[in-house]
């Protein structure tokens, strides 16, 4: 406990890199509680990096918290879709899950490239193409070209728009949550008045449709829908705050 306190004290003043290194050291020493705390501190210090989520998921998995571990790895994978190690760990967690659910499918198959790019990557690319679309007429003007706008501007603008739309789809429509409670009833309405439709278990990842007060409306791959308490789930959005270590390890 003193060690944990010491880690927290150090973490408040340390950089994300130092906190990540500290988390790795604790993990190698088998101190997964301390490692979890260090990784969460690294996140809060601005280190929302796939490596941090990877380490956090590993530490939570060692602590026997497959739900939060799944959420952490899922966040890491959303930041680095091409990271095979995180994908392998996530697959391992899904195989161990009691609910045999397919991971939420991409919102739009049209944006196939979003399976290889994170929202950040596609957003930066959209920004670069927009910059090129705006810079091309400027260059033409400086070179005293006859036509101020050429084909390259149009192509760059179309690409920028496509990437911006796909980025928005990845950010908004692909929201999902992971069940972190041991078992949770999915009901037809908010609160205990709703009929219990089905039960989800820890580690189940479902698509998030709507949030109302402290409940989430979630849907399964077979299109079944229902409301679950928000505190029984953890968002897979990498920008969302990750609960403190004590909360996630003791659901």
């Amino acid at each position, binding site marked *: 406990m003193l060690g944990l306190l010491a880690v927290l004290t150090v973490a408040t003043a340390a950089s994300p*890199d130092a906190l990540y290194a500290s988390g790795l050291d604790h993990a190698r020493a088998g101190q997964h509680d301390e490692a979890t705390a260090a990784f969460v501190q690294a996140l809060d210090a601005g280190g929302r990096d796939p490596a941090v989520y990877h380490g956090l998921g*590993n530490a939570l998995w060692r602590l026997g918290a497959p739900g939060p571990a799944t959420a952490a790895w899922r966040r890491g994978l959303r930041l680095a879709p091409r990271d095979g190690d995180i994908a392998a760990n996530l697959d391992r967690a899904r195989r161990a899950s009691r609910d045999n659910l397919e991971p939420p499918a991409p919102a739009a198959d049209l944006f196939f490239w979003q399976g290889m790019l994170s929202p950040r990557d596609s*957003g930066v690319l959209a920004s670069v193409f*927009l910059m090129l679309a705006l810079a091309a007429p400027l260059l033409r003007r400086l070179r005293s070209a006859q036509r101020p706008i050429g084909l390259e501007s149009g192509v760059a603008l179309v690409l920028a728009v496509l990437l911006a739309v796909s980025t928005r789809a990845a950010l908004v429509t692909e929201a999902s949550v992971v069940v972190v409670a041991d078992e949770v009833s999915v009901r037809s309405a908010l609160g205990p008045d709703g009929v219990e439709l089905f039960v989800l278990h820890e580690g189940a990842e479902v698509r998030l449709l709507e949030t109302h007060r402290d409940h989430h409306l979630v849907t399964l791959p077979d299109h079944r829908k229902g409301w679950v308490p928000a505190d029984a789930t953890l968002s897979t959005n990498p920008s969302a705050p990750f609960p403190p270590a004590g909360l996630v390890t003791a659901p």
Partner: protein
Amino acid sequence: MSLFLLVLALCCPALAAKLQVQVEDDTLVVGENVALEVQVIDGRLDGVPEFPVGQGLRTRFRGQGTSRSIINMKTTSVVRYSYLLSALQPGEWTIGPFDYEVDGERLRHPAVTIEVKAEAQGEESPVRVTANLSNNTPFVGELVTYHVQFRRKVEAHNIRWTPPETPGFIAEPSAELAQRDRSQIENGVEEAVLDIMLPLRATAAGPQTVSPAVITADLPAKPDPRSGRRPVDVFGRYKLQSKSLPTPPISVDVRPLPTEGRPADFSGLVGSFELSIDATDTTVAREETVTLTVTLRGTGVLAGFALPPVPDTADYRVYDDTPVVETAATADGLLSKATFRRAVVPLAEGQLVLPPIGLTVFDPREEAYTTISTRPVVLEVTRGLAAGDDDVQRYATGSADQRRDVEALGDDILPAPGTAAISDRTFAGALPLIVGLPLLPLLVGIGVSVRSAVAGRQADPWAELEAHPMPAEPGERIAHLSWMFRQAASLRLGCAPAEVDRVRLHTLGPKVVALYSDLEAARFGGGATGGLIDRVRAFVKGRGSL
């Protein structure tokens, strides 16, 4: 006579089925084709009607059709059977009589007589048809080729042929009909030649006659004897006329195979054959395989033929593969080639001599039975695996490859990277970059626009020069007038003020040159200064011109 000839016969009482026969023309020239139609009115035949045809004629069924008509409230149906009637030989020939059972009734029609005239002499026909047999005195079992040649010096369309009737022969099923179209030049005239080669196998001894084959083609119609022009259709194309050209009949004498001296092991092959053998290797390990390839080629039928079996011995075993037979019909006859693959497995070490393979065939050229054989094959058989050769790695004894699949002992998660530059990799973390990048060209564009606007607002140098105050001191005034003139001239000429000289000023006119001279004289030579101020001001006001 080109009118339709209508032969109408009432073959049965009224209201019963009737039979009609129509021939397009009853007087034909050799090679001419006309339509023949058998009509069954108010009745139907089973199958296609058949009827006897004279030797100098030939018919070919072309199809049938049915029509119905209503006359005086009575329905009449007519089934028409159409034939192409070809005149092959000159003379008077008959078709029919026609005798059929229609709906339980017997319908008869008398024979129709057709007169066939020979072609007019003296004019060489542009088309010719010939036929011959590669051998007119074959032996039973021998293959011959029936060769039809269709030569034409005019364009021919829709060429087809009717094979001859070949009593005493059968068309060899293992060889396909060969057909070749070519052109050749004879006496300086090019003509197209169609060769058709039909392989026939003699099956019955005795004198036989191969009936004419018929080539039918659409040829240009003959010129009009009065105008000498070839008839054309409404589109200006030469009219075509279907013509049948028969080949002459061929007499054949099929000879039986001699019984005297026929060996007991006669293989049944008739023709000239050669036999050869090749081995894949001359050295083979014991109990391993060497393949012998036996090739039999010649001018006979080889389909279905198999080599005589070889019994297994203590020294070797033999396994025969399915033979591959190839045939090709040529004008000289049918060439066949059979390839037999025979696997031999030696059972004993040392030298193994495989005996020659022999076949007794009947050679029509020699008119005698002959035996053809291969050479003996000598194999050197070495020690094999079965002999326990220690140099060979033996997998069955357990000393071989002991590898096996990697055994999976557990399943675990993969570790996080040991070194990583941690940063905010979320979309929100990259927002400044995402927003800032498009702003760069915007800012540059705004800067360029502002610079242009500022540049556009620069003061007019002529106006500044015009508004420049004149010094009160007379000495300084002359220097100032000279400076103003140089400034204005340099603006007008597009050069530096120091570069303004008399030569350059010539382009601005003699008044300007005169003003320059007066200014120089007043400044350095003490010339008159009167009127210079007004003239310089006028020069500046006039933007460099007077």
